[in-house]
């Protein structure tokens, strides 16, 4: 499977919230860096927890891949948009049933054995807070209508 195909599967399973299937695409010791959350650790714990929380908070989640290329070191680089309506608390933000549309960039490092060994994601958490109704960064749990 090419790195491109692997990345497309990864984002398809992210949309479906299929944590087990995502982990099946990865090496057992795969790492994740969710840069805006300052979460850096094993995919099997930190990455899986993020995917579960995302799926629970946005049950109608859509993941749209806007750009995808594979660099010479077999890293799939993707710009995606995540889109959904909040149905539960997410990253400490109280649920107000707000609609979220957020652009993100992900890098998936792929091994010669066609497994993802490292995931790095960038996005602007300020945009996420703005769309979910947060007004102040020191009062994330307090949202405005």
């Amino acid at each position, binding site marked *: 499977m090419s790195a491109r195909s692997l990345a497309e599967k990864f984002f398809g399973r992210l949309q479906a919230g299929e944590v087990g299937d995502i982990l099946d695409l990865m090496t057992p010791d795969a790492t994740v860096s969710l840069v805006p959350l300052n979460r850096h650790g094993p995919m099997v714990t930190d990455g899986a927890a993020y995917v579960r929380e995302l799926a629970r908070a946005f049950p109608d989640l859509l993941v749209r891949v806007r750009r995808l290329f594979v660099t010479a070191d077999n890293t799939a680089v993707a710009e995606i948009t995540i889109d959904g309506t909040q149905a539960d608390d997410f990253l400490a933000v109280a649920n107000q049933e707000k609609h979220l549309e957020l*652009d993100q960039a992900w890098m998936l490092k792929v091994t010669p054995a066609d497994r993802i060994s490292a995931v790095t994601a*960038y996005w602007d958490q300020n945009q996420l807070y703005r769309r979910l109704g947060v007004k102040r960064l020191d009062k994330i749990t307090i949202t405005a209508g």
Partner: protein
Amino acid sequence: MTTDAIRAGPDVTPRESGAAAAVRAFFDAYRVHDVERMVDLCTDGAGFRYVPFEVWGRQRVLHGEGKVITVGKMIWTTLLDAFPDLTNAVTSLRADEHGNVAAEVGIGGTQARPFGIIACTGGHYELPHLFLFHVTGDGLIDDIVAYWDNVDWKRQLGCLEVD
């Protein structure tokens, strides 16, 4: 600068190495605050999108999106004015055979003037960025996209307002 994912050797294609060189030259120019050189490294119609750059007014939202020669140059000039010691370090750089380049870059500086809603308290910041470029076969950048986290940036500078 670290060399994570920066390749060299006979298996590196000319397109890959040319694109990587253009991006390295861009950040070299940025590091010495040579905005004209940054623009010169791009095509005349180069696209520009700083994804987190949103200014929310009462009537409309201004996005950091347009052309390098207009929006990009204006943002870089304003940023350098607000952070006169702004610097950068490329921590990883990856390219493909079609002119696409992904660069992880640490950018930091000390605030000397207000920037957007961030009032000046003289604070210093260090912030990871991911830049995505497209470079033509002639070695000119024709598209720049960047991602970073404004929450981290604003917290470091003492700004706690979302808008």
